[in-house]
């Protein structure tokens, strides 16, 4: 369930929305190389978090169970962020801002927390693979949408974003449940 939450959290519809903001200013540009840059940066940040997450919990004097509850709250907030389009959909003139905006979305505190939660449940390898895969899937689907539909299907995109955000809330609640029911 936590791995599924990671995929939902990265909400490809939000990635598409951010990308469409860039396309408003640069409709002629294809940015397939930017995809790679974003993927590498986001995957690296997630992987580092997976590796240092447990030490961070120790430094903060947090038990795994309390951390899961906190992670659940972060995930629910991220779902609302996606739902309400906070920090998304603005016109972006430079590629740098596109990279920053997408990386910020893919490596939000909620995503980092979920990566650590997967590490606690399933180990470092699984957490890194899940994080990298979630990044790749979200980027690919988001960018594919931009290529296929541009801004012609914004209503549909909006509904997809909201549905994925609602499902993300379930993932957040599940993390809280795990934290409460764990010993």
């Amino acid at each position, binding site marked *: 369930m936590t791995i599924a939450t990671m995929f939902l959290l990265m909400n490809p519809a939000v990635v598409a929305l951010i990308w469409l903001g860039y396309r408003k200013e640069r409709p002629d540009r294809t940015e397939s190389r930017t995809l790679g840059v974003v993927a590498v940066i986001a995957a690296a940040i997630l992987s580092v978090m997976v590796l240092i997450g447990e030490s961070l919990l120790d430094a903060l004097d947090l038990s795994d169970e309390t951390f899961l509850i906190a992670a659940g709250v972060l995930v629910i907030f991220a779902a609302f962020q996606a739902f309400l389009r906070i920090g998304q959909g603005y016109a972006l003139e430079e590629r740098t801002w596109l990279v920053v905006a997408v990386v910020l979305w893919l490596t*939000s505190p909620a995503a980092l927390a979920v990566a650590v939660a997967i590490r606690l449940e399933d180990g470092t390898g699984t957490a890194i693979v899940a994080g990298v895969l979630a990044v790749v899937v979200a980027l690919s689907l988001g960018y594919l949408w931009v290529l296929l539909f541009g801004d012609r299907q914004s209503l549909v995109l909006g509904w997809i974003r909201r549905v994925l955000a609602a499902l993300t809330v379930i993932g957040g609640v599940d993390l809280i449940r795990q934290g409460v029911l764990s010993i």
Partner: protein
Amino acid sequence: MSHPALRIIAIPVLLWAALLGVIRVVVAPAELCGQGSPEQFRDTADLAARWLSINQYDDGSYVYEYDREVDEFSGAYNVVRHAGVTMSLYQVAGKLDDDEAFAAAEQGTAWLLDNMVYHDDWGGPTNGSNVKVGSAALMTIALAERRLLTGESTHDDVMKALGRFMVSQQKENGGFFTKWFVETETMDRVSTSAYYPGEALWALAMLHEAFPDEGWDDAAWAAADFVTLLRDDEEDVPFPPLNDHWAAYGLAEMAEWGLEDHHTDYARRLAARFGLFIRFEAQKTDEGLNLQVRGDSRRSSALGTWVEGMAALWRLSKSDERLADISDDILEQSSCGADLLVQRQVDSNEPPLEAGGWFIHGVTRMDDQQHAISGLLYTADALEGRVKREPDR
């Protein structure tokens, strides 16, 4: 706000920073407990036992409640708690080879025996107006503990009379009525108790251990089924399972009898509940914003029960393979709670009415010491891998 840096970075970053701050204060403050050591835990339990024995009256009753802020004693008394305190003193005597604790427990037992009421074939200690299932149960456990400690059969008849009282109060579904009225010689068929069934469960299990051929296990099994399957619904527990450490003791006692899956499932959920409470308690600092958000520390009669419960569930997890996977986690939480008890105890340099006690808002009650003692003793054993609950001497 036109620059992209402000739009796409500043707003989300500020929101996340604010949220992380709120979460740190409200959801996930630092947990301020260490793991402690068996020696520390036993020393702390010993000092608490000294509070009980020093503050015992000549008739065998204990100082019930003391407010150090105004140097006043409460006029109240509670037979159930008297029996529980006496039980904990026998535990100290048995685990720490403490003659002073044993002498105090003997006086406490004498007080209970003096207050026994007999009717038909059963008996139980009374407060003058009624005989409660909880009093009978904890007195049974105290006497069973004494029997294990001394090897004497002096009070066997009393134990059996207490057992017959509990059985007479048991309902068809395994639950219990709560009390019998001395004056009218009638049973209270109205009130219920959340904790008496767990107390009776453990007491009946101890009776079966003491007298294995007398069929006490039938009542114990019925009580175990009631507690694990029905009690929380019947008592309208808002967020089940009820944090019932007595049930944990009882199930641990019955582990070798062969528990069913619903018993161990319940034990697993119970461990999670105690763990949650202990973690929450470990996050309290009693000062500043934390105090406003998280509230005061709970009294040790609450924290102690969670530690007791965890220590009992640790023994169960060591005896039942189905719970083996949570054994280490249980021990970690039990140690955390026991360490909090160590941190919060009044040290030995203080006056006799304070040294060894646990005070909240200036007040201590005798069962603050009782529950802390039991939790500390059995957690110390657990840290050393000792599954045997019975006295060591």
